[in-house]
């Protein structure tokens, strides 16, 4: 390639196009095609029945609960629910795939054509919405697990996971940055947990994704050649893998090379993606309808009955928080990111006597900070929503100041009882007795003649000094507004 052309390529502005395939493990008690349990962490091969082992002669029977969960997802994303969907066999050999085929859905998935709105930061502190298309979501069974450690040159196979129900959610190639991809993945994560169809546990592999990434010159309609990054199991890795891929492909294209269609793996240790197999090596899965299973026929009555079981969804809840509590869209969006957090906030708000903004600040601020530091989930918070609300009520009724509240919160965190108990025991009740505060002010003024002189000489900022000293004299318990007012009077302001 001529140097000139390469220079042109270098000046070109590139745009990334991303589509995600998310695998959400459905929270059914038993497997998708057998009665074996799905619980995580059992001893290897103890949760695999003859059907999961692919014994000769066994047959699959569809778990109705998995169907219901897929429909819930479809309804929550405005998808079309297929009146007839078909299971197909995806044929390939692998030791952790007992039947030599995976039962999935191919041409006729159960759910298709929906949308999801994600919230993005526009860089100037504003939240803007973007609609991402959902191409389809289909049901399939998971494979088992190959264990390469501890077997001295051999591979162990654990089939406990074989037959676990998965919902594969495929997005349109609507995502234009790693940040958007993460926002979308987080939104789906939040949604499936709101719907209680997936526990969302990424460490255990209950929620993972494949990312299809390609580059094109900005303004071009046609997509570039994509690489598929397989099996990414954290939000952070998704962002890093995509960013690595953007850099790799851009670099390649700018040097006049071409991206090849291939499957890549993200290596978190090295923070890079590596080629797994190219399109030429891609397997021919020989999909065909599974003759052991009948088509899934869903009528309107079933779909409407399922619709009635839907909880309030994140977007609806966010809107309600804005209108009902007068929160900013940003705060509402943070508080509704998970159903548990939203529930926590609502209980706190109620117990606080309706001081929504203060409750929101405490939940998003001190409480979240403490939880993060202790690596605890909101559901494991040592301070219950009820107690937090009770404390906030004491702030709003002037029993304690915001500053003292931090001390009360810490005591509650350490298990010293509810706010009233802590306030009582530690004597943190705010001083609102005019006489007591005046006495403290008088003493401070009398003890600091030099500062008083300077203040009267025009150094008005020394007012703060007197406030601090007087507050100190009351062990911080003086009502700050009252103290200010009395001090001003004393200094003749």
């Amino acid at each position, binding site marked *: 390639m001529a140097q000139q052309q390469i220079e042109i390529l270098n000046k070109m502005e590139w745009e990334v196009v991303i589509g995600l395939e998310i695998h959400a493990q459905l929270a059914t008690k038993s497997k998708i095609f057998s009665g074996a349990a799905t619980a995580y962490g059992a001893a290897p091969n103890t949760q695999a029945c*003859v059907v999961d082992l692919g*014994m000769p002669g066994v*047959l699959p029977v569809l778990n109705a609960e998995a169907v219901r969960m897929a429909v819930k997802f479809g309804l929550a994303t405005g998808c079309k629910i297929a009146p007839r969907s078909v299971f197909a066999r995806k044929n390939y*050999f692998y030791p952790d795939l*007992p039947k030599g085929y995976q039962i999935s859905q191919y041409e006729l998935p159960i759910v298709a054509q929906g949308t999801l709105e994600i919230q993005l930061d526009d860089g100037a502190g504003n939240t803007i919405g973007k609609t991402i298309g959902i191409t389809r979501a289909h049901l399939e069974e998971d494979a088992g697990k190959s264990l390469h450690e501890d077997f001295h040159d051999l591979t162990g196979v654990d089939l406990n996971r074989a037959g676990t129900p998965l919902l594969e959610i495929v997005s349109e190639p609507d995502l234009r940055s790693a940040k958007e991809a993460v926002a979308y993945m987080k939104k789906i994560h939040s949604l499936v947990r709101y719907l209680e169809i997936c526990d969302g546990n990424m460490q255990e592999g209950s929620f993972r994704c494949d990312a299809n990434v390609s580059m094109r010159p900005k303004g071009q309609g046609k997509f570039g050649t994509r690489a598929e990054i397989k099996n990414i199991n954290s939000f952070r890795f998704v962002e890093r893998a995509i960013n690595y891929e953007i850099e790799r492909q851009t670099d390649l294209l700018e040097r006049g090379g071409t991206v090849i269609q291939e499957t890549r793996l993200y290596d978190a240790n090295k923070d890079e993606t590596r080629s797994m197999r190219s399109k030429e090596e891609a397997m021919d899965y020989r999909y065909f309808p599974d003759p052991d299973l*009948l088509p899934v026929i869903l009528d309107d009555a079933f779909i409407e009955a399922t619709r009635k079981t839907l909880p309030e969804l994140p977007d609806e809840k966010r809107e309600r928080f804005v209108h009902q509590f007068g929160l900013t869209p940003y705060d509402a969006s943070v508080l509704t990111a998970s159903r548990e957090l939203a529930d926590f906030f609502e209980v706190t708000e109620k117990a606080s006597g309706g001081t929504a903004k203060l409750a929101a600040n405490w939940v998003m601020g001190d409480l979240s900070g403490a939880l993060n530091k202790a690596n605890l989930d909101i559901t494991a918070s040592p301070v219950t929503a009820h107690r937090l609300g009770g404390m906030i009520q004491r702030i709003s009724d002037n029993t304690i100041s915001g500053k003292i509240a931090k001390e009360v919160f810490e005591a509650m965190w350490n298990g010293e009882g509810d706010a009233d108990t802590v306030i009582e025991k530690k004597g943190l009740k705010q001083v609102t007795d005019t006489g007591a505060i005046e006495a403290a002010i008088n003493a401070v003024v009398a003890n600091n003649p030099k500062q008083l002189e300077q203040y009267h000489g025009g150094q008005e900022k020394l007012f703060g000094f007197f406030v601090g000293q007087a507050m100190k004299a009351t062990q911080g318990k003086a009502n700050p507004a009252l103290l200010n007012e009395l001090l001003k009077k004393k200094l003749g302001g």
Partner: protein
Amino acid sequence: MHNKTIVELSADLHAKKYSSEELTRTFLARIDKFNPQLNALVTLTGEQALTSARHADAQLARGTAGPLTGIPLIQKDIFCTLGVKTTCGSKMLDNFIAPYDATTVIKLKDAGTVMLGKANMDEFAMGSSNETSFYGPVRNPWDLNAVPGGSSGGSAAVVAARLAPAATGTDTGGSIRQPAALCGITGIKPTYGRVSRYGMIAFASSLDQAGPMARSAEDCAILLGAMAGFDALDSTSVDTPVPDYRANLNNPLQGLKIGLPREYFGKGLDAQVGKVIDDAIKQYRALGAEIVDITLPNTMLSVPTYYVVAPAECSSNLSRFDGVRFGYRCTDPKDLADLYKRSRGEGFGAEVKRRIMIGTYALSAGYYDAYYLKAQQLRRLISEDFTQAFKQVDVIMGPTSPTVAFNLGEKLADPVTMYLSDIYTIAVNLAGLPGMSIPAGFVGQRPVGLQIIGNYFDEARLLNTAHKYQQVTDWHQRAPEGFK
């Protein structure tokens, strides 16, 4: 006692003329004596059989016995039997002891039957002569140089040779009806979905169906009653009530409309076989039936259609035999690919490999539309032929097989000729209809079978039609020389 039907044996057992244990010992002794010539059984379960027989005798003594209590039978080795070797006629499963019972096995056990052993069969039910078995060919009791048919060849031979009063079979393209015809016994393939497939090792899932093989239609009626019914473990089993198949066995055939498809009597049909079938039709006319000429125009498409659909499904169904969890594993595999290649290469026989190859090809990207999809379209056309026909007639009749039993080795080297021997039976599986074969005469000393095809879930009518014929003929009572 070995010449008696189930109905007769059951009456004797209930009348305490002899015990199930004695009956079981009689048949076990016959198996000992005759099986070496026939090679019809691959596994004997004598001890287990005597235990079951004694259990049955206790039931007979208590008066809680049913029509099958204490009746010995043989299971085709395609049905998984708990704790008993289940080989499917393959080296691949020569070491496989099933960890569970097939639904059909449980149902027949619950009905009180006594399993004597497991019948030889074509490997994974792929064959029409029982010559593809890893355990060697089965011989036809009527002529030891002839094949018994397949794939349920062992089942047919044991019943014909009176080594058991009944056996189970499975039928994917004629595997109950064709060996029944070639061995001179009665067999019925029920409507697809009538009998559970759970625990029956799959060949072609959308075609496979189990059914009984015995010496009379009445015996088949009793057995089918025990085998049929909805099974929550098989999504393709149909939830409709099982009728009492014996209730209408004696209905008169006056006015019964019998369709004779002209395609079943044309080129390819052995003239002498045709003559036997003509005589049987005359007999039906004498019984008051009305004969109607019909056409099944897509008959010629059934063999090519079948040989896309069945191999496609089998190529996937047999993927689980990979040497990883059960079955044959090659020695010292050097890596995973080697493990797969040699375990499957050494574990499967030639016919099975041929069909896996055909099926894999038919499902491959770029060929799927031209083969698998096209075959599914043709399958609908073939079914439609029958739907039209059953608007005019009650049952359809014709030969089960174009010829009588051929000689061992005669067609083995020529798969296409072998495949064509199933030309009259295959369409029934593609349409999912019930069909049966009953003895209708002989060409020389080799039996001829009459096929009766019915509408969906019309097994009772098929059995009635067969039974009335057996009331006025004795072809089904003939025993092969040397096994009387």
